[in-house]
């Protein structure tokens, strides 16, 4: 947060790469943790449900950022991996009555396997071609789920799933789900933080910066590219499972191409190759439609007729959403994370900036 960085001398690489860059970071984390623990006791159920959505989106955005932001491989098919996780978990939960601590990793692993297969073209092609290949992956997976009743459960391609049970009690309310989702979101954040400062994470970054050069310095491109796809899809699969438990239903309509674009927008607006950025992006993109709806319901009647407002909201959401993507790309390519760092570095030397 806002603090001076003078007086701390890092004399080893280990110190430079530590999870907490400065001692004060521990305090920052402690304060945020305390706030997150206290928040649900004071907030209305509706706001908790919004936070829950943000928590789910955070996991997915982190996963996508590992692939796009850190490894530099484009995926327009991430929602498909989420649906793979969601339907795997839903089928396991309904047919075999398995608890969430089995279905959740199973959904993630299944998504990782599918993701690695979709990632195979990345060994030969990159950039635009990879984007189109993953787009095809999205459409093919979507089509398959929609057309194979054995996977999709037949009616409306959706499967109802009971809420997860913990210590014999079912998590029914948003308040209870909050703790469940918070746990996995924190796990995902810490996991990603540790991943990107490890050997694997550095290999990813080297591949992003120049894959041929990375190969020459001895990084096994074949292994690491597929690994990036697998890890990223694992996160996506877990996101799908969490979302399924959150909604109580697995439905492919939650995981269409539009969702893929939503997640890409999160990491673009938040900041590519940044963990804090993924969280910012998840918050921003999740809140955007809610804020637009609130704004239109409260003030929309000044501009438009009351009957029109409900029809306008989805269109306005699309316009704001697309406009923001373009705006960020043109004006602030490093996203919200960069804006946050600018604010921070302004205050770091305040009031004696030169």
């Amino acid at each position, binding site marked *: 947060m806002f603090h001076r960085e003078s007086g701390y001398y890092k004399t080893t690489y280990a110190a430079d790469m530590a999870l907490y860059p400065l001692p004060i970071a521990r305090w920052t984390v402690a304060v945020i943790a305390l706030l997150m623990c206290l928040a649900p006791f004071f907030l209305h159920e509706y706001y908790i449900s919004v936070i829950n959505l943000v928590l789910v989106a955070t996991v997915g955005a982190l996963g996508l950022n590992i692939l796009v932001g850190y490894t530099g491989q484009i995926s327009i098919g991430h929602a498909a991996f989420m649906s793979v996780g969601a339907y795997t978990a839903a089928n396991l939960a309904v047919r075999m009555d398995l608890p969430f601590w089995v279905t959740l990793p199973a959904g993630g692993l299944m998504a990782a396997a599918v993701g690695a297969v979709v990632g195979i073209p990345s060994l030969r092609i990159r950039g*635009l071609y990879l984007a189109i290949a993953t787009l095809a992956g999205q459409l093919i997976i979507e089509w398959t789920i929609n057309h194979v009743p054995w996977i999709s459960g037949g009616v409306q391609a959706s499967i109802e799933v009971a809420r997860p049970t913990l210590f014999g009690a079912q998590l029914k309310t948003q308040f209870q789900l909050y703790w469940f989702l918070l746990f996995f979101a924190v796990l995902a954040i810490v996991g990603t933080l540790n991943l990107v400062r490890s050997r694997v994470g550095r290999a990813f970054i080297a591949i992003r910066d120049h894959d041929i050069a990375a190969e020459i310095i001895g990084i096994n491109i074949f292994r690491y590219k597929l690994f990036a796809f697998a890890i990223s899809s694992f996160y996506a699969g877990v996101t799908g499972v969490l979302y399924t438990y959150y909604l109580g239903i697995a439905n492919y309509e939650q995981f269409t191409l539009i969702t893929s674009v939503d997640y*890409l927008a999160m990491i673009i607006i938040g900041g590519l190759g940044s963990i804090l950025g993924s969280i910012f992006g998840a918050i921003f993109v999740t809140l955007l439609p809610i804020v637009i709806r609130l704004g239109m319901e409260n003030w929309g009647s000044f501009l438009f007729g009351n009957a029109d407002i409900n029809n306008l909201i989805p269109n306005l959401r699309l316009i704001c959403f697309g406009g923001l993507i*373009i705006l960020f790309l043109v004006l602030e390519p490093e996203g919200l994370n960069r804006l946050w760092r600018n604010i921070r570095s302004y205050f770091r030397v305040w009031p004696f900036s030169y």
Partner: protein
Amino acid sequence: MFDWEFTLVLLTNGVLIGLMYSLIALGFVLVYKATDAINFAQGEFVMLAGFIVAGMLVLAGAPFWLGVAVAVLGMVAFGFGLERVVLRPLIGRPIIAVIMATIGLATVLRGAAPLFFGAETRSITLPISDEPFAFGPFTLPPVQVAGALLSLAFLAAFTWFFLKSRMGVAMRAVADNQQVAMAMGINVERYFAIAWGMAGIVSALGGLAWGALLGVDVHLALIGLKVFPVVILGGLDSIVGAIVGGLIVGVVENLAAGYLDPLVGGGTKDFAPYVLMILMLMIRPYGIFGKRRIERI
């Protein structure tokens, strides 16, 4: 017993629809060829053009030629403006920036068009007779024939343009190497704008043809998704490739709908081109007519 007549009907329909796909793919190829930018909003371009034509004809009651002229001019202006405002700042940035910018643009267009033109489906009536042409067993819908002819006309025009005209040669030089082209006194930015403007013309007529075939509403933009198999199969930077790719996709799609649909219960039409595209990406990612790029460090 193999039904020849059925197959031939599927093939003719495939060829006609395929040429109409080519019409849209041409816009994509033109932009990629000249500026190396990828237009994920090609379907939305076509939708916008369709909305303009339908808006002029239905809402304003304008004569047909005026509607088309306004659509062409409007789309050219739109292409110029887009290049200037959105794409020029992104020159030299990673490829995902351009991809996401055009996806963002597509989202804006899909949200904004119904606000201006209304959400209901509008029809475009071409000034040709509705009577299908009949050749023996075949009945050819006139809209598709017109679209296919338009596509072939564009093929001829653009082939001439790139081979013979001064502007086309300059554009090829820009596509080949921007720095060298600049050193030879070619105004690279101007040619970028021209490429987007040309994509606008193609999209305007694509919107006219597809709008007449399917009716104009937001779902018209979905044909943009068909562009990718077409351009990957044919080669991203080849005009002939766009035509051939379109033919392949159209034929494959119709054969799949005719022979595979009864087996699996429908929907293979939307699926088969993508499988073909994935195979192509694995074997020959630059397509049948595309130029192979050699990577240098």
